[in-house]
């Protein structure tokens, strides 16, 4: 009997643990209800708009400008986060100093703090009469109500993605590899840049992609500090909200479907990085 069973192609390998049917069934049901059907609805509405409509709505200069703003600010913020997130993670993994645990716990603040709260707090700091803004104002440097403000908000939002992706990989680094580099004559800096940094590259890239993906779609923390000036500091999610408030569902659908495709691209990118890392280095991040 077992031979018959084991030679047959099976979708699931059998084991004695009960409850697969009900848990798997419920998982699929709930997943479909909450996530898949609503997302499919967006796809269906976008498809029923037709290619021509979708293209004309999507190529509206204001839409293109908002998409570009969302993308490049998220890109810049992710880049900042890769540099500083790397330093923060390194300091927390390798060094022991008073206050380390506090810093470590604080890194998750952007996960826990509601985005709207972050948004108004950052505005209070960087507005022309704000905590920091007032010192920059005399030099003609404006942060709030410019794209720079968006970058700052997205740095706040994206930081934990980089730190929390890189940190565990750093903890797993083998010291003997660094020692090997030293015995071969490499200075500490050479070891850091030629040995340590390259082995963190997949994790850094993943952190970058996660930060980028989150930044492109971010809304709450950005709209307060951005000033939302069309063609300058208007982000794509805000444009969706505005079109919805005008009951212009077609335009909202068009922008939404473009953004959703962008998210899928980022997701694909992350999976490609991980597949590459697994193939090349024989391990997942």
């Amino acid at each position, binding site marked *: 009997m077992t031979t018959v069973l084991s030679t047959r192609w099976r979708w*699931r390998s059998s084991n004695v643990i009960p409850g697969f049917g009900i848990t798997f069934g419920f*998982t699929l049901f709930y997943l479909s209800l909450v996530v898949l059907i609503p997302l499919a609805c967006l796809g269906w509405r976008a498809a029923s708009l037709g290619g021509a409509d979708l293209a004309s709505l999507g190529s509206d200069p204001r839409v293109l400008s908002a998409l570009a703003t969302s993308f490049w600010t998220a890109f810049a913020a992710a880049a900042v986060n890769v540099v500083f997130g790397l330093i*923060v993670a390194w300091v927390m993994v390798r060094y022991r100093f008073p206050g380390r645990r506090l810093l470590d716990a604080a890194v998750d603040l952007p996960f826990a703090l509601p*985005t709207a709260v972050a948004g*108004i707090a950052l505005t209070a*700091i960087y507005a022309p009469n704000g905590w920091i803004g007032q010192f920059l104002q005399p030099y003609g440097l404006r942060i709030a109500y410019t794209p720079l403000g968006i970058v700052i908000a997205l740095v706040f939002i994206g930081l934990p993605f980089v730190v929390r992706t890189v940190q565990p990989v750093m903890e797993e680094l083998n010291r003997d590899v660094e020692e090997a580099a030293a015995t071969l004559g490499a200075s500490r800096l050479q070891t850091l840049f030629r040995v340590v940094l390259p082995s963190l590259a997949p994790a850094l890239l993943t952190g970058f992609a996660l930060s980028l993906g989150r930044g492109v779609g971010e809304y709450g923390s950005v709209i307060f500090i951005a000033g939302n000036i069309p063609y300058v500091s208007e982000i794509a999610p805000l444009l969706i909200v505005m079109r919805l408030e005008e009951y212009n569902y077609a335009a909202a659908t068009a922008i939404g479907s473009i953004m959703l495709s962008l998210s899928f691209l980022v997701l694909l990118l992350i999976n490609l990085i991980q597949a590459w890392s697994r193939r090349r280095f024989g391990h997942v991040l």
Partner: protein
Amino acid sequence: MSSKSVPPTAPIVFRDATSESPLLKAGLIAVAAVFLALVLFLPLAAVFSEALRRGPTAALAALSEADALAAIRLTVTVALISVPLNLVFGVSAAWAIAKFDFKGKTFLITLIDLPFSVSPVIAGLVYILLFGTGSLFAPYMQSAGVQILFAVPGVVLATIFVTFPFVARELIPLMQDQGTGDEEAALSLGASGWQTFRLVTLPNIKWGLLYGVLLCNARAMGEFGAVSVVSGRLRGETVTMPLQVEILYNEYNFVAAFAVASVLALLALLTLGLKALLEQVYGRNHTGSSKH
């Protein structure tokens, strides 16, 4: 092999081969500390300081306004509905994925993670398209007199969407690491499936479960983008605390806006404190991915 006594040499202090010079070390710590202070601590300080700009009484007065109280009530209600639902889903998905082998498992995990990579505004948008005018369901709901959009059910649905993966994401890697040995042992000793889950599995995952619930709750209470799209902002009815913050802020009522915001910030601090505590209790390695 007795050694001849060696004249004591001046102790030479060398750095071990895998650490940086003290100067570089101090520099990096300083960079990290200043960066985190600017990016994380300063905004947090700004929230409380702006709330107390006119003294604690003004802040407390703003919090005892009827609208503020209604927003707090709605926020708690929404969390009380969405978190348990996602908890049940998370446990069930983790059980199916971690304890069994089936084709397409990786794809299923990707689908569960999907809400993390979708803009919250799009989460709101999809429900508008699903239930709004011109949608497939609109005529039926109208005839049945059910209001989803611009009402509490819409707020709940949007919240469920954005907090969907939290518990599952935490439990799946944890339960995969634990394998099926304990459960098989319990079953072989005659326990029923439900007994096995309650007496064997649940104690093993309780800290991870709590951790997931904590993060899920923080996001549920703090969600802004998705909720703002479907809420309609009916004061005292469909306005959650984050939306109340926005409304007050846009009315230039800054003290009140920051007062409500500081309640949310306190909630965030509480979440972080409990999270740190949990990590201490059961170790960072078991706290799953933390990618959300």
